[in-house]
């Protein structure tokens, strides 16, 4: 420590600090004067020169939208691509009098007064430097006419862009969805929007695979540095950095099967799902009726849109994953497996079916009024005896049934890149208490046992269930095979954890449904030893049948209005010995599952197994002539019109 300093020392030191302070101050002062002089030099002496540079500041950076990724079917056939799109844009700042310029433009290309008003409103709303699209998808002649007359059209720019096109529009509408212009709502959802989204009329996926895999499909923007003159006309391009096109997606879907399935569903309000049981690949997933997604890309007219939304068959809905239906007797597979696994029914056990069971003051009917008599397990599936399952469900309990449903894929979400996927519902006691605050009633169990009441499943879910029962493995559905040439690994299925004896009993019953003498779907059997089919019919009510109606005779479906008829369901797989494909078909308000759904499912299954139209020999001899006529009447895709793209994979 220094010793005590004298006051004089301090005084001297303080004076020194003062002197150094003055020097510091002078230094800072002179630097500041230097800065001021520089300002004067730049802003007064050289101001004119800089002003000129600012006025001529002609270098602008424009983004180059990347080509959107292609989407191919499993064989590399193009199902979503890009086409050249000629368009004309106008920039308010450069145009001066926008109305005048648009008036001149209207003499060159077809522009309605409404188009002009719309463009005027848009230019007023956006920044004056943003180019606004005036006309899109011009014919080459119109486009050329505008280019030639460019000098008379200040602020008007002609551009060639890419626009989405779906070559197989109706087959893939629900799977792919469609693209559309970025909306304010889309932008609000993103924290840091890609600058590409600011480009006027840039299109992004709105629905389905296009939306769910938007990030992969979009690609990366390129950049163009251009020199423009004082009216904003592009003089030359100074630099260019190309963007990266979006990744090519390969689907698991087979376009031919997809097309056949859609044609086969026809005008029904229906859904069909085909799963490759070996790896979970969805080879066809079809919702009917369909629509043309190209209409949405181009901007659908209100009349077309109204036609789609007002159609009572709901073409816009994707019934395969969004639809949740009471699965009806198809659910007996779940109830049966749950009972077998719980050990509440032995191999030889029988249940007597008098046509109904009484529970308190309620009567639960079997679909067969006269009853099935004494029924064993296999027979119960074959003839779809309701009373048998009422009894089984009471012995098993709803919680074990619900657990089995979830294990088989009902009431759980299958994560596919599609929009608004339904979870379905496998109800149990806790669920009802949470949802309605009420205790589960035994009547609820009886309803659930035959897939009515609270139970809901999507066509995809019952297809997954069928694949799982057929293989004994927890098959997981997959829709995307590869992204940008990189294989999406097929999930390795794990065993379901259901005993082989239980599965074998159920499969035996399912075989009898189609091939048994009293099978509910025996009319839809396959007459080919190598491709024998197993399946289960389902008919689910969409209305309550009152006691009064039951007394006076249940009104047959044919006499009901369309939207009150029963849903028809059918699930199946084949070949029975070595399962290859599982199929689920749901026909909304189609009537009985055996009549409306099973024949469709059989045709699709055969098409899948044969990789094309099946030979008539696969059908029972008595049906061949009718089937030949039916299949012949289908309007199928002409393979020559498809575009095959060699994927990098």
């Amino acid at each position, binding site marked *: 420590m220094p010793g005590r300093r004298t006051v004089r020392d301090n005084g001297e030191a303080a004076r020194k600090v003062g002197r150094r302070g003055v020097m510091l101050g002078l230094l800072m002062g002179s630097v500041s004067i230097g800065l001021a002089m520089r300002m004067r030099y730049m802003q007064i002496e050289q101001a004119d020169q800089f002003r000129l540079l*600012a006025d001529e500041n002609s270098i602008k950076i424009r983004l180059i939208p990347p080509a959107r990724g292609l989407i191919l079917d499993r064989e590399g056939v193009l199902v979503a691509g890009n086409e050249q799109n000629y368009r004309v844009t106008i920039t308010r700042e450069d145009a001066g009098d926008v109305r005048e310029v648009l008036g001149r433009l209207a003499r060159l290309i077809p522009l309605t007064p409404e188009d002009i008003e719309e463009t005027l409103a848009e230019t007023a709303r956006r920044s004056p430097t943003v180019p606004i699209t005036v006309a899109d998808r011009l014919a080459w002649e119109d486009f050329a006419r505008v280019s030639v007359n460019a000098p008379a059209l200040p602020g008007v720019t002609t551009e060639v862009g890419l626009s989405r096109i779906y070559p197989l529009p109706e087959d893939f509408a629900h799977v792919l969805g469609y693209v559309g212009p970025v909306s304010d709502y889309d932008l609000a959802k993103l924290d840091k929007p890609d600058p590409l989204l600011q480009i006027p009329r840039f299109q992004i996926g709105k629905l389905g695979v296009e939306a769910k895999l938007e990030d992969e499909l979009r690609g990366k923007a390129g950049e163009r540095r251009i020199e423009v003159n004082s009216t904003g006309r592009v003089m030359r391009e100074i630099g260019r950095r190309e963007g990266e096109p979006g990744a090519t997606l390969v689907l698991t879907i087979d376009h031919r099967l997809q097309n056949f399935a859609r044609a086969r569903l026809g005008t029904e309000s229906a859904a069909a799902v085909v799963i490759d049981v070996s790896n979970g690949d969805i080879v066809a997933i079809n919702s009917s009726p369909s629509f043309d997604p190209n209409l949405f890309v181009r901007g659908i007219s209100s009349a077309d849109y109204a036609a789609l939304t007002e159609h009572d068959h709901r073409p816009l809905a994707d019934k395969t994953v969004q639809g949740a239906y009471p699965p009806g007797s198809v659910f007996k597979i779940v109830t049966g497996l749950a009972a077998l696994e719980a050990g509440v029914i032995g191999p030889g056990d029988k249940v007597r079916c008098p046509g109904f069971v009484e529970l308190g003051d309620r009567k639960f009917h079997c679909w067969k009024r006269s009853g099935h008599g004494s029924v064993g397990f296999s027979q119960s599936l074959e003839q779809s005896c309701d009373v048998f399952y009422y009894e089984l469900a009471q012995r098993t309990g709803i919680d074990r049934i619900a657990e089995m449903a979830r294990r088989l894929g009902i009431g759980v979400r299958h994560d596919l890149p599609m929009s608004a996927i339904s979870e379905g519902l496998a109800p149990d006691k806790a669920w009802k208490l949470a949802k309605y605050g009420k205790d589960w009633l035994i009547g609820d169990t009886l309803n659930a046992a035959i897939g009515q009441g609270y139970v809901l499943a999507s066509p995809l879910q019952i297809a997954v269930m069928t694949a799982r029962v057929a293989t004994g493995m927890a098959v997981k559905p997959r829709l995307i095979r590869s992204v940008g040439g990189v294989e999406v690994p097929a999930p390795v299925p794990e065993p379901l954890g259901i005993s082989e004896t239980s599965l074998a009993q159920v499969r035996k019953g399912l075989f009898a449904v189609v091939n048994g003498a009293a099978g509910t779907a025996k009319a839809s059997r396959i007459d080919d030893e190598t491709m024998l089919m197993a399946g289960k019919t389902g008919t689910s009510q969409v209305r309550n049948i009152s006691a009064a109606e039951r007394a006076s005779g249940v009104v047959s479906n044919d006499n009901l209005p369309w939207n009150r008829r029963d849903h028809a369901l059918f699930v199946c797989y084949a070949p029975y010995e070595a399962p290859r494909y599982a199929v689920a078909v749901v026909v909304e308000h189609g009537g009985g599952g055996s009549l409306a759904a099973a024949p469709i499912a059989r045709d699709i299954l055969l098409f899948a197994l044969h990789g094309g139209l099946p030979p008539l020999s696969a059908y029972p001899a008595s049906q061949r002539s009718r089937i030949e006529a039916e299949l012949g009447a289908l309007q199928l895709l002409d393979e020559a019109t498809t575009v095959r793209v060699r994927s990098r994979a």
Partner: protein
Amino acid sequence: MSYLEYNVKTVPTGFRKVLYVNWPIVLLMVATACVGFLMLYSVAGGDMAAWAEPQMKRFAAGMAGMFVIAFIPIWFWRNVSLVAYLVALVLLVLVELFGTIGMGAQRWLEIGPLRLQPSELMKVTLVMLLAAYYDWLDPAKVSRPQWVLLAAAIILVPTALVLAQPNLGTSLMLVMGGGAVMFAAGVSLWYFAAVIAAVAGTILAVFQSRGTSWQLLQDYQFRRIDTFLNPGADPLGAGYNITQAQIALGSGGVTGKGFMQGTQSRLNFLPEKHTDFIFTTLAEEFGFVGAISLLALFVLILVFCFASAFQNRDRYSALLIYGVATTFFLFYAVNMAMVMGLIPVVGVPLPLVSYGGTSMIILVMAFGLVQSAHIHRPR
């Protein structure tokens, strides 16, 4: 003995301190900050919420901190100088280890919602410690080599850490800010001459090192130097910022293009228009008159700081004020020189005007030290 044991009775106490605040400095700072709010409103295209409003909140927070610091006696701040410096040093080490990477360099620590840049904190604590050091040191010994070396170490340890981030601009400011306190404390001029000679030699060495295995600067730093030396060579590449900034500035002319009328900034030609390059927008929209007025505000703040230091017989207080004033000076001088193309772009904000978080709050609070020294000066 230091002057802090002076007659405490003459120092204002309680709320009377408000009367002894150096109000001209406060008013000049508020005026400068208001220029900043105006410019932030303008560059956001007339949007308050984008930058102007958060900036106002931060400035208010900084001012509140400034008054709290101002009312705490200066001898308290002298006594905590070493601790403050060590804390900042530890934070610098932490930012090196856990810091968030931004703009290619490790610069800040995320502490809850706070984004702390320890290098900004170090600018102030370094000045505090050096002032306390020279207050403690016998004035007769300031030029002895061992005591000069100790002071140099105090400066160079944090500088090395900041340089490793790598943040060239801030490390230079640390050296110059610390050097100013040493200079004011009376360290022999020969040392400064020697350092300047060494720096000149080093610059030569740095250029010689380029492209060799012992390259002394990062590539991007070399590119910035190239850009500075010849911005016209690649007007669209690395020189783009500087070319556009100068066009904006020069085209403002005498009276400017008018509030919110700057074509350069409106057309997004300007890079970082709300942070380091905000001066260009001011110069474009308000011309030479506006630019020189802002410079005048800065110089006036310095003048009042120096006036306060001259009156102050307490050694710590005077050195501290010189240090803070120098730091403030370096902010605006480096920033203006940078956007006017006098020195390479080093990423230093315009004090009180540029949009920025910790940097501005810490600077405003540093003025709290100046105020505390002013209020509690020996009378």
